[in-house]
Every structure is written in C-alpha cells, then in structure tokens.
C-alpha cells in the first residue's frame, strides 16, 4: 500500500515539475498545486497506512493509526489553497497590467 502511494507521489511530482518548468503562468500555478498534493500524500504515507483502527476511545484494538499526519495535511491543504488562490489572482492582475501570460515575455528590462 505504502509503496503504491510513494509511486503515486513520484508520478505527481514528475507531472508537477514538468508543468512548473513551462512558460505559461497558468501551467506553472497548476504545477505548484499538484506539487502540494504530492507532498500531502507523502506526509500521509509517513504515518503508516491501514495498520490499525481509528484512534478513538471506544475502539477496542491493539493498534491504532497515527492521526497526526492527517492533522498536518489538513493544515498544509488550507495553506496551499490560500497561496494558490493568491497566485491565481496575482497572475490575472499581471496579465491585465502586462498584457501577457508568458513568463519569458515578463522578464522586463533593468531600466523601468
């Protein structure tokens, strides 16, 4: 199970890096969103998957799943959501002002 998830993390990271390296701003933003999904899955797999039951008081079991990674992911998802929302708005404003969504054309000169 963990090895499958780790392979998935690798695939997602590959896709995300391909997107981040492109010239189009929207693709870069999608790439960063996928990057954060990949790392959330990585954190999840660090807490061992399916080894026991949920950590609740009523459950009579010998092993429980570590719940902490899920709390970490929850926080990280919210943060990445906020940052992605911000950078989308930023890209839209930049497109309005600069008239381009191509990162190569956004380079600008030293003398502005």
């Amino acid at each position, binding site marked *: 199970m963990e090895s499958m998830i780790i392979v998935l993390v690798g695939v997602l990271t590959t896709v995300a890096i391909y997107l981040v390296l492109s010239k189009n701003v929207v693709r870069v933003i999608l790439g960063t969103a996928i990057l954060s999904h990949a790392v959330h899955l990585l954190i999840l797999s660090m807490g061992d998957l399916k080894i026991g039951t949920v950590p609740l008081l009523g459950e009579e079991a010998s092993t429980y799943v570590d719940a902490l990674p899920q709390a970490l992911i929850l926080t990280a998802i919210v943060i990445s959501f906020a940052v992605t929302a911000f950078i989308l708005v930023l890209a839209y404003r930049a497109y309005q002002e600069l008239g381009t969504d191509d990162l190569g054309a956004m380079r600008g000169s*030293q003398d502005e």
Partner: protein
Amino acid sequence: MNSLLVFPMLLPIIVGVLLIFLRTYGRLQAWVSIGAMVITTSISGFLLHQVQTNGIIRLDFGGWEPPFGILFVADSFSVLLVLTASLITAICLSYALISTSKELQTMYFYPTVLFLIAGVNGSFLTGDLFNLFVCFEVMLLSSYVLLTLGNSKRQLREAIKYVSINIVSSWFFLVALAFLYGTLGTLNMAHMAVRVAEVGQTPLLTTISIVFLIVFSLKAGLLLYFWLPGSYSSPPIVTSALFGALLTKVGIYALFRVFSLIFYHQPEVTHTIIGVMAALTLIGGSLGAIAFNDIRSIAAYNVVIAVGFMLVGLAISTPSAIEGSIYYVIHDMVAKALLFLVIGTMVTLSGTSKMAGMSGLMKNYPLLGWSFFITMLSLAGIPPLSGFIGKILLSSAAIDSGSYVLLALALLSSLFVLYSLLRIFKNCFWGETIVSKEEQLPLRRGVLIPCLVLVALTIALGLGTEYMAPYITNAAETLLNPDIYVDAVLGNIQ
C-alpha cells in the same frame, strides 16, 4: 506569567483583524498599529528580563505537555530577535504614517504589516517544527501581499517570481518535515534533539538536514539569493525596509536553531556546507553591490552580504563566533531598516533610483546626508557604532578556529560594503548641485524622525554593548548547549 509569551504573536493578529474594519481611516490605523507594536516591544523587553533571571520560559497551548502539543519556547536568542523585530516594525510604521500615499494607507497596508510581524514573531518563538512552517507561511503570505501593494508593473512581475520561488521552497520544507517525521516520529524540536542524540545522526538524518538547509537558505538568501535583489528593490520604501530588516532574519534564525539544536552531530558535513555557502554568498553579494548603478539594487545586495557574514558565525560555531553573529543580526536589523529608509527617501526626493540622476544632495538636505554617512559607517563596522562588536568577535573566533578563508572573505566583504555605499555617498551627496534651493522638493515634515531614531539606536547599540553583553552571552550559551533548551522543554517529563 507564561501567558505573556503568546502576545508577540496574538496582539498583532487581533489588532490586524480589527484594523481591517477601519479601512478608510488611514491615520487612525497607523496610530493603532504603532501602539500595538510599542506594547509588543515592551512585553518582549519584560520577557527578555524574565528569561535572564528565571531561565527559559515555555507556554504549552491547551495544557498539552510536550512532546504532544504545540508550544512556544522563549530563550534569550528568540526573545532578543522578537524585541528587535517589533521595535523596527514600530519605527517603520511611523515612517509609513508620515510619508506613504493615502492610497497605500487605505489598502490594508497596516493590517498586512501586523500579520507579517505576527508570523515573524511566531517563527522566533515556536518550539514545534510544523508550527514553524505555519508561521513561515503566515509571514510569506503577508509578504506577497505587501510586495504587490503599490500596483506598479515591475512589482507584479517581481511578485510572480518571488511567490513561485517561495511556493517551491515551502514544498521542500514539507518534504523535509515528512521524512523527518517518518524517521523520528515527533515534531517537537527539543524532543527531536533528544531522539537524534539517542540514535546518532545517521546519513539519512544528515541528508534530511541538508534539505532543511536548502529550504532555510532560500528563505534567508544564503547562496540561493537570485530572487532577492529584484523583489527587495521594487516595492514601496517602507515595504523594502521591513523586508530588508525582517524577512531574511527569520531564515537565519531557523538555520541557527535547527543546526545548533537538532543536527549538530556531524558538523564536518553540515557546517562545512554552510561555510562554503556563506563564502560564496559573500563573494556574490560583494560583486553585486559594486556592479549596479541603481541605489536600491545596491541596498538589496548589501542585505545579501550581511546574510553571508552572519552565517560565517554558524559555520565556525565557537562561543564567541555565535555571540558575534547574534550581535550582528541585531545590528543588521537596525542598520538595514535605516539604509532602506534613507535610500528610499533619496529616491523619493530625486524621482529616480539611478546614481546618475542625483548629485549634490548634501547642499539641499544636509541632515539626510549625514544620516546616510552614519548608516554607511555602521554597516561597514566602524567603532563605536553597532556593527563593530559583531565583526570583532567573529573575526577573533575565525582566527582562533583557523578558518582563514572565511575570515578573509568576511573582512573583504566589509570593504565592499564600504566601497559600494561610499560610491553612493560621493556621487549623490557631493558634486555639482543640480537642483537649486528654489526648485528642490521640500522634505515632508517629520520624515527624517524615524531615520534619526534608528541612527540613535545604532549609536546606542554600539555604546551600550556592555549592557547587552549578558543577554547575548546567555543566548549564545543556550545555542551551544542544546541540553539547556531540551531540559527546559522536557525537563519534568524525562
């Protein structure tokens, strides 16, 4: 008593949220936020005194004892930085009150600055690595907003680069955290220190520590500073001053904390890499500082040089080196804010940031000229100003430990700092006066007061070294003996 520890982070957040509702009242917002920062500064001063007398203070949120809950830990190092950061923010806010346009003042500028300082203070105080990530993000998100406020095309362009770089570095932070949690099974820094000491620093852990090094280097501008000059020289003056004084210092704090508390078992690997990076940073920053004719870029490259200089202390890691670095961090926060404010004022007055467009400002604005002169001496480390003591301690430590290459680079970089600022002083303040007395833009009343306060502060820090010494020694001692920190956090549990 312990509950006071939450105020440096909580107070700015609460006041910031309240100020959102007062959007249209620019001046009122400014006064309220300055008041909040003054209160935060005095609370930090009180905390510093408490730490000095009673040892490290700890606050467990929700009564969860370590290693299970999130906690704030205040040792001398973190409280000193919180104190300085809050004070600098108060001064920068007063500059904003006097000189910023009405447009910026009513566009959530003050709440955002308060959220920024909340993130900065939280990063300094937290004792939990994931919480450090969260505080980083609070700080970064505020800095994204501050960088884009002002609405020039150049800012939007630089913001896209800055935000993308920081998203990628935050991703690295999460990857390193995931692997570290998988290896050690804890997030509390003191607990991590204990576990790493128990199992020994295996190659895997050293690799994870190098990933952390990449993350914090990106935030601090250590070798990976390619994004820094552009994003520090495009926003409004006040924002640049806040960035130059605060943002890189958080990365530096994180490097010091992590590599002195958790990953200190293999200095021949980690600290060597830090030393090489610091050396390259000094070289790159020095070249950048003399290569440009744009005074805002020169100021930004001076930030880079200072980062390299402070990390030399961590690379050497002897008591006097660490002390020198702490002195230098505090001095640099004051001096960099001052440098950016003075340079920003010059840009405002002459309407250009090119050196060729200014000449003979000394005739028109003598007080500004001499403020710049003192800033220059302070940054170059001339006694009796604040930069001197840090440089002398670091240099003597470098001689004692035999790191002559780092010593040579650190001292050479000081000369480059002096040269780059002297060039500005000579070209912009002396020479032919191009603007006559009648045509010159009037300096707005009170615009120089924040700068003069900072000038007084840099002189006071230089002359009052004796009074600071016990706190700094205590901070360095805690950094070099991780057991003090660990006992303070986990003492009653082990």
